C-alpha cells in the first residue's frame, strides 16, 4: 500500500510578469517502508518536490496524499497534527530551536502531542544516537554532525510513518555525513519507516530502495534497487 502519493504535481512561481515553472506534472507513489531517494542537479526541483510531498508547500496543480489522506487543500492548522504525528523532517541546515537544549528539541514534538512519555522516549533516542552526554547542550554548542543526530531523533520521536530528509549530509564533512547516513538507514530498517531523502550524492542513492531523478522540474527516471 502506498503511504505517499503524488498526482500530477506542478509548482509555478510568478516573479513580476514572468511565470517560472519549478515542477511540472510529477506523479509518484511511495509504498510503506520504502527508502526513496530524490536526486537531481541543483535547481532541478527536487527540494520543491519534497516540500510539496511533505505538505510544507502547496502545489499549483495536482494532489498529495499521505497515509490515504489528501493533504493538498489543508490549511496550516489542519496540517499541524499530520506534521506532528505522521511526518518527520530532517533538514540540511538542522533547524534546531536555538533556545532549547538538545534534549528539549527532541522532546518537543512528543510534548506537543501530549505524550506523557516524551522525556523517556527522547532519552532513549538520544542514547541510541550516542548523544546522551550532550543532551543538555544548546544547538550552538554542538557540531554539525551532532546537530543532525539530534534533528534525526526529533524527527523520529513520534514514530512517524514518513521521514523527509532534505540533503541531510549537505553541511557535513564526509565522515560525519557517512555516519548520519548510516544512522538514517539503520533507523529506517529498525522501524520500517518510510524515508524520502533528497540528495545529489550518488553514494547515498546507491543505498536506497528506489531512486527517482528530477531534472528541469520533471521526473526523468524512476529506478528500484534490489533489496
Amino acid at each position, binding site marked *: 500500500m502506498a503511504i505517499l502519493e503524488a498526482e500530477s504535481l506542478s509548482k509555478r512561481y510568478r516573479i513580476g510578469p514572468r511565470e517560472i515553472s519549478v515542477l511540472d506534472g510529477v506523479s509518484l507513489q511511495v509504498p510503506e517502508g520504502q527508502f526513496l531517494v530524490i536526486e537531481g542537479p541543483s535547481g532541478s526541483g527536487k527540494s520543491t518536490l519534497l516540500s510539496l510531498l511533505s505538505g510544507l508547500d502547496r502545489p499549483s496543480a495536482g494532489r498529495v496524499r499521505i497515509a490515504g489522506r489528501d493533504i493538498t487543500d489543508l490549511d496550516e*492548522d489542519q496540517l*499541524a497534527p499530520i506534521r506532528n504525528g505522521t511526518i518527520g523532517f530532517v533538514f540540511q541546515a538542522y*533547524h534546531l530551536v536555538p533556545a532549547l537544549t538538545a534534549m528539549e528539541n527532541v522532546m518537543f514534538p512528543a510534548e506537543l502531542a501530549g505524550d506523557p512519555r516524551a522525556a523517556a522516549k527522547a532519552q532513549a533516542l538520544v542514547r541510541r544516537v550516542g548523544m546522551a552526554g550532550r543532551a543538555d547542550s544548546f544547538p550552538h554548542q554542538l557540531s554539525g554532525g551532532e546537530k543532525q543526530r539530534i534533528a534525526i531523533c526529533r524527527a523520529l520521536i513520534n514514530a512517524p510513518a514518513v521521514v523527509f530528509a532534505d540533503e541531510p549530509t549537505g553541511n557535513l564533512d564526509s565522515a560525519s555525513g557517512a555516519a548520519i547516513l548510516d544512522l538514517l538507514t539503520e533507523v529506517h530498517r529498525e522501524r520500517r519507516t518510510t524515508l524520502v531523502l533528497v540528495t545529489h550524492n550518488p553514494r547515498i542513492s546507491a543505498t536506497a530502495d528506489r531512486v527517482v531523478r528530477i531534472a528541469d522540474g520533471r521526473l526523468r527516471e524512476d529506478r528500484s534497487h534490489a533489496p
Partner: protein
Amino acid sequence: MLHRRFVGRVLVQSRRQAAVLALCTALSLISLVALEGFAAGVRRTLIEDARRLQAADVIVRANLPFSPALTAAVEGLVEAGRIAAVRVHEFYSVARAAGGPATLLSQVKVVEAGYPFYGAVELAGGRALAEVLRPGTVVVEPAVLERLGMAVGDRLHLGETTLTVAGVILVEPDRPVDLFSLGPRILAGAADLEAMDLVRHGSRVRHRYLVRVLVEAQVPAVVETLSRAALAGQETVETAGGADSRLKRFFDNLRFFLGLVGIFTLLLAGLGIQSALTALLKDQERTIALMRALGATRGFVTTQFLVLVVLVGLAGTVLGLTGGALLQHLLPRLFGGLIPAGTRLGLEPRALVEGGLLGVAVVFLFAFLPLYRLGEVRPAAILQAAEQTLRRGPAYVTAAALAALFFVGMILWQVQDPRIGLLFVAGTLALVGIIWGLTLLVLGGLRRIPVGGLVLRQAVRGLFRPRNATASIMVTLAAALAVIFATLLVERNLNATFVQSFPEDAPNLFLLDIQPAQQAALAAELGPAAAFYPVVRARMEAINGVPVDRDSERRRRRDNLARTFNLTYRDGLLDDEVLTVGRALFRSDWPPDRVQVSVLEGVREMHAFQVGDRIRFNIQGVPLEAVVSSVRDRTRDSLKPFFYFVFQPEVLAAAPQTRFAALRVPAADIGRLQSRIVAAHPNVSVIDATAAARDLGRILRRLGTIVRFFAAFSVLAGLLIVVSSVMATRAARIREAVYFKILGARQAFVNRVFALENLLIGLISGILAAAAAQAGAGAICTRILDIGYRAYPAATLGLLAAAPILVMAVGMAASRGILRRKPEDFLRRQDA
C-alpha cells in the same frame, strides 16, 4: 562617500525600525519641549501681565505694620504727585452669618479706594468694585455664600462689626489661580477695618502697599526711594515684574519637578533609541557583511548609516517638536485651576531651539554605540547562521560614560542646584541599578529553574533569545511604572492619613491670634483638652555674626531662614519631643544672663545649627541674641503644633505675643464651637483642619495626576523598546514560529507561546515596579513624611494585571506578521 540610493533603499526596507527610532527620538523630546514651552508661556504671562497679576507697579510687603520711615516715604511720594498708593491688609478670620449659627474661616482682604490699579475685580452682575464696595459692605467669593447659606444683601459678622454682602467676586486680578488657601475671599473696604478690630498686636496680617507709579520711567527711582526707607529684612519693595509671588514660586517648583520627570523620560527614550537602532542595524547585518565582503571600508559603511540615523533623527526631532508644541495646548486642561486664566501659549523659539539641540544630542549619544559596532561586523557574517556576539570593549565603556556625563549635565542644567541635581542622579541610578540587579536575578533564576509545561517552557526560553533586550525592556518598564505607581501610593497615603481619616490623636481645631488676655476665657470655654502655646513672631538676622543672606535664602525650594518664625517659650519638652543633642532643654551650667534657645532638628535642614551657635533674632524691631543650648526632635510627625525655636519663659514672657491653641473636638461639634468662639472673640481665627485637609487633598490629587501624566511618557518609551526588541529578534522569532509549525504546532500554540513570553515580561516588570514603588513610597511615607503606610493591595494587583496585558498587547501587535509566517516561505528564504 555617500551612496544616496543605498541609504534610501535601507530606509524603505527597514522602515518599521526607522519609524520606531524616530518615535523614540520624538518621545525623548516631547514632554520636555511641551513643558518648556508651556512654562515659558506661563512665565511670560506672569511677567507681561505682572502689573495686572500684582494689581500695581510696585509692591511693598511686610508681615508687621509698616515702619514710620517707610510710611513717610510712601506718603511723601504721593504728595509729590509721583505715585498713587493704596494699603492692603490681608488676614484670616472667621465670618459668621448674622442671625445664624454658620461660621466660616475666610481670607479677608481689606483695601483702600483705588484698588486695584491694574486689572479689575469682576463682580457678578458686571458692576464696578468702586460702585459696590461702600463702607459697611463686603464683596465675597461664591463659596462664602454657599457655605454660610447666605445671599447677596444678607449681613455677616466679621470681627466686631457686621457688614452687608453687596456683591459676588468672579475674578480677582491679584489672586489668579486656585492655590491652596484656608478659606474663601471676603473683600472689605478700609473704612471698616477699625470697626472689625481684627488687626491687633501680634496678629498675622500681611501688610501691603500697592503703588502705581504715574510716570512709568520712574519705577526704578521709586523702588530705590522706598527700598532706602524700608527696614532691611522686614519690609520688601519689589516691582510687579520682579515680585517673588507665591504663584511664581509654586509654578517654578512644579516645573522643576516635572522637568526631572522629563529627563527621566529622556533617559528611557534614549535606551529606546539605542534598542531601535540596534534592531535596524541587525536587520541590515547581512547586507553590511556583504558590503564588507565586497571591499567596503568601515568608514564607508559607517557614513551610510550615520546619514541614515541623522535623517531619521531629524524626522524624530521635528515630530517631537511638533508633538511638544501640540501637547502644550493640552496642558492648561491638565493643570486645571493651577495656572493663571488667560495664559497665552504659543511657539516658544527658545524651547524649540533647545529641544532641537537636545534631540540631536540624544540621537548621537545613543546612536554612537550601535554605529560604532558596525565596524565589528565581519564579512564572514554572511556565511554564519548564528548570531554574532559583540564584545563590550572600550567603545562600550566610552559610550556609557558619555551618556552618564550627558545626563548629569542635563540634570544640573535643568535643576540648577548641584545638591538636588546630584541627589536626583543618585536616586535615579539607585532606582535603575536596583531594578537592573533584581531583573538579572529573576532572569538568572528563570534560566536555571526547570520549568514545567510546554508552552510555559517555550515562553521562558524565548526570554533568552539572543538580542531579545529582555533585561532592557524589564528595567525600562519597571522603572517607569515604579515612578508612576510610587506617586500614586504616596498620594493615596497622604490622602488616607490627612484627608479621609484624620489622625485620631491629632488636634483638628486650631485657634490663631488669641490675645493673651483672652486665654483664660477661652481655656474655660474649651476645657482642659485645649493646649495653649505662646507665639512671638520674629525674623532671624544673623548666625554667629554672619548676616542671613535673605535673597539666596528665598531662592531655596524648601523652607528658608528669610521667613518670619514663630518663637515660643516653655521650660520642658512636649510629649512628642526628645533631645538629640544636649541633656536638657536649657543649660544650667551657662551664665544666667546668656539667652538660650533650643532648636528643632527640622530647622537644621536650613542651617546646620550646633550647640553654642549664636542666633540673632529681631522681635518686632528689638534685637535678641540667643545661644543654641540643645537640639530637639519630634518622635513622629503629626498635626500637633511644633516650634523650631524654644526660649526660656523669662526671656520672652514680656515680648509682644499672641497665643495659639490646638485641640481635638468631635467633628459634629466643630461648627457650633466655632460659632461660639467667633461670637465671643471675633479676632480669633478658628481653623477646621479636617476641612483644610480636604482642600489640600484636592490639590494633591491634581498634582498627582500631572506628575503621572508626564511619567506616562516614560512607559511609552518602555513599550517602544518592546516593539524594537521584537524587530531586533524578528528573524529568530520567525524561525521559532516556523520550527514549531514544521514540528506540528498549530497557530494557536505559536500564539500562546509568544503571548506568554510577553505576559512574563510584563508580569516581571510589574512585580519589580510594584516592589520598587512599595519600597520607595513606604520609605517616603515613613521616613520623610513620617506617616503610617498602607500598601493598597488592590491598586498593586491592578498594576500587576495592567502591566502584562499592556506588554502582551504591544508585543503581539508588533509580532503579527511574524507569527503567521508559513514554513515553506521561511525555508525558501533560508535556502536563497
